[in-house]
């Protein structure tokens, strides 16, 4: 393994671990249940996941919304509505997207 790649991996890996670990030790006992910080933290999850979904599909949307993306998204929505299963919805989205690419 080249030294520069190992160095890069160690720096980034150590910082990423620190970002994930040290905030779990933050003292949250003084936060009021309906206070500003509590509401901020409650909104963090939906905001983060919505952001990551958009960030992951944006590169696929150059020049509009391609049909496979629409079919893949619709497959996730339909299967989640029917089965309430993250596993099934994820697989259905991938299969729907792949089938649309194949057929179109």
């Amino acid at each position, binding site marked *: 393994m080249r030294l520069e790649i190992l160095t890069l991996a160690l720096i980034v890996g150590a910082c990423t671990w620190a970002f*994930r670990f040290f905030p779990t030790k*933050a003292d949250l006992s003084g936060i009021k249940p309906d206070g500003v910080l509590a509401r901020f933290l409650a909104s963090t999850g939906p905001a983060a*996941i919505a952001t*990551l979904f958009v960030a992951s599909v944006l590169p696929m949307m150059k020049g509009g919304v391609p049909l496979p993306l629409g079919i893949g998204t619709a497959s996730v929505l339909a299967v989640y509505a029917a089965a309430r299963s993250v596993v099934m919805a994820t697989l259905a989205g991938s299969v729907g997207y792949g089938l649309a690419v194949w057929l179109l």
Partner: protein
Amino acid sequence: MSLHAPKSTFTAGLVTALPIALGYFPIAFSFGVAATRAGLTGLEAFGLSLIIYAGAAQFLALALITGGAPVLVSAFTLVAMNIRHVLYGPALIKRVGPDARTKHAWAWAFGLTDEVFGAALGALARGKVVFSEAFMFGLGLAAYGSWLSGTALGAFAGGAALQNYPVIDAALGFMLPALFLALLLSILSKLQLPVIAVAMAATVAVTLAWSGTAGILAGMVAGAVSGLLVRRNDAA
């Protein structure tokens, strides 16, 4: 769920991680293929997954390495990209409440990726699990194992592995967006709709105006801040 319900086990964590493992494997496979295509050895590709363990940052690392960027510049860029993770620990611990134990968080928090955080939060929100460190170890280990095995197989298969299978390549490429959307649906509530709308709009606007990394940070922060404002207005 009752306050006295038994804490979820390591096995429950493994089971909850199933969609992540299914989603991670093909993406990690793609990373292994892309890394070897970019000129990295199999060991270097596996080393990036083993040590960094952050998908988007790893793909960006390939671009920086092959582009000849200096190590410190690359490191600074990738660290900045991962700074969003500082929000996950407090959000998760706050959701659990005073029963949250973090004695071994130095170990399980290594695996607190975007998807693991989303799956843990979703399972807690649906009342399907009761937080425990064993549960977090199970959740994180299954996801990490999938990521490492996918990378190893992709690196072993080599840079040309998917060139003759464009449909499979496309389907695998949509696995991660599908997983994010399914996770979002699993924690969706009427109260959080404005948060989600603002986060999405901010991500699009800042990504188009500046960069993808800035868009991710902007979306998360704008969405979380909007949650404060909407609820404050509702209460007024």
